């Protein structure tokens, strides 16, 4: 022990080369996401259901079904994708609520005490993973199912047909939007069961039931519900849609801003 340490006991200086950074937080969230078995299981299920259900439903289309058009053909293809979006939404919820239920949020927030950057990093990493995975799955499923449908009266749809490429990218964007919305809900409610219940009940099912309610104004607002606003961007022919393409994107943005704004405010204010 040196004399300096003896006289000034506060001589310990921590390492200067370790710094908290945005890139570090992104890498950390990446590590956290892939180090859980549940991520692999859920995403594998999503892939299997996307392709499997799409193929199964497409191959069971009656040969003589001729009515429909591109949107019907696409809806057969994407049946599995829309189911898989639920898996992905649940995984999005769990990336946040899992930290609260296990207590690992305390470690996380001790490392990044400004907190908000953790939320952005989680959303960015999860959004990017979903975008890449579903970007691939949407197109893979599309080509596979259209090959199956080409033998039917309905006929296959080509990527070069007008609006098809846009609709497929729209499907991908819709899944990413729903995944992020779910993650934001998880950050607001902080509880796995509550968040999953809210997502399935309020985001997915309630807008479907709303049409049964006796008030006419409900029909007017239902298209603007967070679970419905993305529908238009996944259509090949948007002429009959409740929202225009532009409105669809705008409202997706609004709901994400509202959700993450609320999540951010609550994250800053509440004790961990």
């Amino acid at each position: 022990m040196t004399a300096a340490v003896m006289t000034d006991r506060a001589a310990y200086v921590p390492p200067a080369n370790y710094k908290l950074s945005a890139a570090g937080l992104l890498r950390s969230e990446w590590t956290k996401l892939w180090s859980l078995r549940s991520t692999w299981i859920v995403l594998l299920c999503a892939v299997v259901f996307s392709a499997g259900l799409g193929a199964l439903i497409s191959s069971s289309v009656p040969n003589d079904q001729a009515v429909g058009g591109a949107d019907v053909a696409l809806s057969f293809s994407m049946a599995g994708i829309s189911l898989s979006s639920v898996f992905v939404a649940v995984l999005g919820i769990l990336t946040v609520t899992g930290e609260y239920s296990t207590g690992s949020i305390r470690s996380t927030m001790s490392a990044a005490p400004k907190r908000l950057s953790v939320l952005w990093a989680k959303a960015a990493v999860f959004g990017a993973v979903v975008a890449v995975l579903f970007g691939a799955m949407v197109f893979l499923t599309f080509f596979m199912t259209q090959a199956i449908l080409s033998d039917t009266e309905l006929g296959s749809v080509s990527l070069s047909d007008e609006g098809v490429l846009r609709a497929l990218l729209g499907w991908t964007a819709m899944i990413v939007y729903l995944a992020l919305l779910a993650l934001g809900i998880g950050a607001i409610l902080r509880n796995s069961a509550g968040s999953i219940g809210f997502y399935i009940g309020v985001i997915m099912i309630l807008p479907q039931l709303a049409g049964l309610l006796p008030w006419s104004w409900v029909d007017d607002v239902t298209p603007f519900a967070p679970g419905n606003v993305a529908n238009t961007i996944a259509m090949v022919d948007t002429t009959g849609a409740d929202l225009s393409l532009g409105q669809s994107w705008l409202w997706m943005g609004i709901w994400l801003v509202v959700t993450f704004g609320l999540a951010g405010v609550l994250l800053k204010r509440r004790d961990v």
Partner: protein
Amino acid sequence: MIRRRARRTVLGMIEIEHLTKRYGKKTAVDDLTFAVKPGVVTGFLGPNGAGKSTTMRAIVGLDAPTSGLARVNGKHYSEFRSPLTEVGALLEAKSVHAGRSAYKHLLALARTHGIPKRRVNEVIDLVGLHEVAGKRVGGFSLGMGQRLGIAVALLGDPAVLILDEPVNGLDPDGVKWIRLLLKGLASEGRTVFLSSHLMSELAQTAEHLIVIGQGRLLADTTVDAFVSGSGQASVRVVSPDAARLAEHLAGPGITVSSPERGVLEVTGTEASVVGQTAAAHGLVLHELRTDRGSLEDAFMQLTADAVEYRQTTEGANR
């Protein structure tokens, strides 16, 4: 004109100023003020529910104080550009996702600060988790969870260590190990602040002591002063001639009691005097020991007073 610099915060100092934290109507911490200095192990003593954890959570910014301040190096924890190198904290064992391996948990935290994998492996070896580092934390025992928590606290090689009940669940070897580890870290000039409700544990590890009860400061003193200032040391004697020895020991200021046959507890004198008395009269001793372990008693006295005080004030307000 000579202007003296205003009192500066010492590097590594933890300062708690008028800290109050209420959860709803319940006051967990009540106007608490104290400082923890670097270079020594400081114990944080109090019964369960005294507000130890709440205070520690406030220091690392997990709980926002209702009023008052909790600062390290004169800064609020969230102002640090590299929090993990400033303060390492073990708050609750298993602040870890049960499905993640110990290695990945540490790696994920390390990545936020650009801490290399080499350092992750270093702390894993240091806490003795090498063999189970790749296993899911869900299967860890309480002791293994504590070791992982200590690894997390040490990850950034921080200047300040805050450990909430680090000894809980550790086996005797582990307890000895952490005692030496903490003393070593403090001797390097770091600030080491650990809480416990086990008074005997802190007596062996800490030099300084902060005692709280019901969220209030009861004592801020050295361990030696705390023990000697409250309980008297007593001498315990085991002898087949206990009755005769008791007669010879009797004198002004000396009390002799016999909790069981053949055993004496003597206060007001010292072991050396008891030994000499026995030798002078040719009495056989089987055991002669000074009991300073009255930290428990001292602590009970303090907290009992605090409870009484609170109850009378509450009664007056009613």
